[in-house]
């Protein structure tokens, strides 16, 4: 009899988390429209969708950071009101955010302590952090200052602080976006170990291959509604992408490489000391990109990418003019505007605050990067001789970019800050690509951008190269690198590996280079 009850109980065990008819409205916009979701223990469940599909809104409601407009959340079969993240953690829900909510000036232990409820803070927290991070293969120093850590290490802090609370459900928002393939694999091992201990994982990712590899179930959102719940094992990456976008995603066509073009970007033995204590010194960087060619630079975040970008763009100038040569002109000493005038364009990693000013309209943002250039269509200038701004032209350019690069916006010329991340990225890319620059340096062109927009951006980059421009693409996304690159180089702790043809490299080889395998040989060369 008792046995029977147990078996009955186990077959009728309610799902760990159930979401019923959840609705979230922001003003007129329905971000989540009657969402239903079941998540069982010991399973990794993927949440897929384009940017703005409502994934983040949904998990924020589950994690208590947002309150639903209507609908209910059931935890182990019982209705709960998750009115704060603290309440969610109390229930056993942990979350690793895409943009880490870490405090740079505090230590690892202090950061973790801030996120723990009172009962878990007692005893020797530093020791428990060391032990747990060691157990799961997530090496961490409890007394290290977060400001000194790489992005991968920062993610480990977030994961460890969730694990310390022994969560029943772990929500992960794009966890592998910043990791090397090897680091990603070790994360998967950690996740598999967690699920074997009964924990469920709600996994948001844009990387469909990865979802196929590790997830047991997948829910696909589009425009705030669930369009499908599928088994990712039996779907293909293409069919998943199609469900996300609602249309066929065009495979990026690579075209033919005209390899004999003129070298348009040259850096020879370029060294530069970092200007901040947390920066990376660039050490004897050699690179050459010919017209018509894309050089992709792979590497784990924080290995000198930002410094290299700053050196190439002229944000950080060098007193040796010959250090960098663009379009046949020595320009190591030139600033950004002067480099733009000789035909170069630059797109930094952070779209908000670096590429675009949030509370400026899009047309104002166009003026910011193109004020000193003539418009390539009709040779008009955005800023006249007397210093007055030609707003009509700025608005025309904005409309043109909006149309060509499919920037979705509520009004014709909204503030940059009101655009979603993916749309703003399309705008920023469009602003520079529309100039048809001879040289383009771009850092993380599709970071946090959904599959449809990413394909559009990548195709635009390839088209620009095939039309005779030289491109450097700095990226941490290996799929992207293989899709775009003619040549691949890897940056690790400020050393750049010699570029090699893309076809001759495998992901594993790049992973080894990311971990610094080439540093010794490069060092030998410099000596």
């Amino acid at each position, binding site marked *: 009899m008792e046995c029977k009850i147990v078996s009955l109980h186990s077959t009728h065990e309610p799902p760990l988390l159930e979401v019923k008819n959840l609705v979230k409205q922001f003003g007129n916009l329905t971000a989540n429209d009657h969402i239903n979701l079941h998540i069982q223990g010991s399973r990794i469940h993927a949440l897929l969708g384009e940017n703005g599909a409502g994934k983040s809104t949904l998990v924020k409601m589950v994690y*208590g*950071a*947002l*309150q639903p407009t209507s609908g209910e959340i059931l935890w182990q079969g019982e209705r709960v009101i998750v009115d*704060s*993240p*603290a309440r969610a*953690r109390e229930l056993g829900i942990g979350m690793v*955010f895409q943009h880490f*909510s*870490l*405090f*740079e*000036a*505090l230590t690892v232990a*202090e950061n973790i*302590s*801030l*996120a723990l409820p009172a009962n878990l*803070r007692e005893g020797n927290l530093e020791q428990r952090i060391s032990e747990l991070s060691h157990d799961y293969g997530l090496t961490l120093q409890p007394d290290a*200052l977060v*400001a000194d850590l790489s992005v991968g290490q920062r993610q480990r802090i977030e994961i460890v602080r969730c694990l310390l609370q022994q969560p029943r459900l772990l929500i992960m928002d794009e966890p592998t976006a910043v990791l090397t393939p090897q680091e990603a694999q070790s994360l998967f091992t950690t996740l598999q170990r967690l699920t074997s201990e009964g924990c469920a994982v709600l996994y948001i990712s844009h990387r469909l291959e990865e979802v196929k590899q590790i997830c047991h179930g997948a829910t696909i959102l589009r425009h705030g509604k669930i369009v499908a719940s599928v088994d990712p094992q039996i779907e293909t990456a293409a069919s998943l992408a199609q469900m996300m976008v609602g249309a066929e995603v065009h495979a990026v066509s690579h075209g033919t490489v005209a390899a004999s073009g003129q070298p348009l970007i040259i850096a020879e033995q370029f060294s530069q000391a970092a200007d*901040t*204590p*947390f920066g990376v010194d660039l050490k004897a960087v050699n690179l050459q990109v010919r017209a018509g060619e894309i050089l992709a630079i792979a590497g784990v975040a924080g290995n000198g990418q930002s410094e290299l970008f700053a050196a190439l763009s002229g944000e950080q100038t060098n007193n040796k003019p010959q250090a960098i040569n663009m379009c046949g002109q020595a320009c190591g000493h030139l600033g950004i505007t002067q480099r733009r005038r000789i035909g170069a364009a630059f797109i930094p990693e952070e779209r908000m605050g670096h590429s675009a000013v949030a509370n400026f309209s899009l047309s104002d943002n166009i003026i910011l990067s193109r004020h000193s250039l003539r418009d390539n269509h009709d040779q008009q200038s955005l800023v006249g001789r007397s210093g007055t701004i030609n707003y009509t032209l700025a608005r025309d350019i904005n409309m043109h970019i909006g149309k060509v690069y499919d920037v979705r916006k509520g009004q014709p010329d909204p503030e940059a800050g009101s655009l979603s991340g993916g749309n703003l990225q399309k705008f920023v890319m469009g602003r520079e690509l529309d100039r048809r620059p001879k040289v383009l340096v771009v850092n993380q062109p599709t970071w946090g951008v959904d599959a449809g927009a990413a394909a559009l951006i990548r195709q635009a980059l390839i088209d620009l190269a095939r039309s005779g421009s030289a491109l450097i693409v700095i990226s941490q996304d290996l799929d992207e690198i293989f899709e775009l690159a003619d040549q691949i180089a890897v940056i690790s702790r400020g050393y750049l590996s010699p570029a090699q043809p893309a076809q001759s490299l495998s992901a594993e080889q790049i992973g080894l280079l990311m971990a610094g395998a080439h540093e010794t040989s490069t060092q030998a060369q410099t000596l």
Partner: protein
Amino acid sequence: MTGLEAFVLTVITASTPFLLAAIGELVVERSGVLNLGVEGMMVMGAVCGFGAAHLTGSPWLGVLAAILAGAAMALLFGFLTQILITNQVATGLSITLLGLGLSGLIGSNLVGLPGEKMQPLNVFGLNEMPILGTLVFGQDPLVYISILLTLGVAYFLYRTRAGLIVRAVGQSHQSAHSLGYKVIAVRLSCIVFGGCCAGLAGAYLSLSYTPQWIENMTAGRGWIALALVVFSTWMPGRLAIGAYLFGTVWILGLYAQAWGIGIPSQFLSSLPYLATIVALILISTNRRLSVVNTPASLGQGFVPDR
């Protein structure tokens, strides 16, 4: 009493109001709020402290009134900047102007009245001891309170969880909010604490330093306290050293003429600000210093995204 002893005594009395006002402002800024209303809160503390002591005959009731007056001004500042999300710089400046004007109005009948001077302590009867007796054991109570407050704030910020939360809120209000901390409540409490300290500093001026009410008697000390917080790079220990340094300079300005030193007193009284500019340059050239100690969200209003 030797000349040197007298000099040191005046330095202590000149430094104490800086220390009191600045230690409060340090906590406020550590929570990410820039309160430029310190001068106004201080002068309100001075007039209310003096008035209450005059009416009741008790300097301690004066101190209490001063603290309440500072807290009331701080609550107004907090309501405007945290609830209505007004610009902190503009609001702070108006609080200072309001405080200066309002204190003049309240104090118009108090000018020239005899005050209640706070009596110095005589700790264990030791102030009769030669040399250090009066210096160490014979100060008035607020001097000891200022030192205890500094030690308390240092302990609070670096040894308690509440202090960690304050530092976290000042570092990144967005992150603190996403972890479930009540950013606005934390900041309001810090602002009120800062107001109490500023009021206390005002009370020290009108009940101990010069036990009378003179309009605008804070004479820019609130601004020096603000400069001091930056000078200290938001560290309580350095703040105490800086307060005594600035106090010494302040007194030197008064002594310079009497001693016949050829330095214009205007130059000496501008020294604290010059020192602050130097400190700002050092902070900005040493990025590590600024990342670790500077509250990253200083002066930014927080609007929760729900």
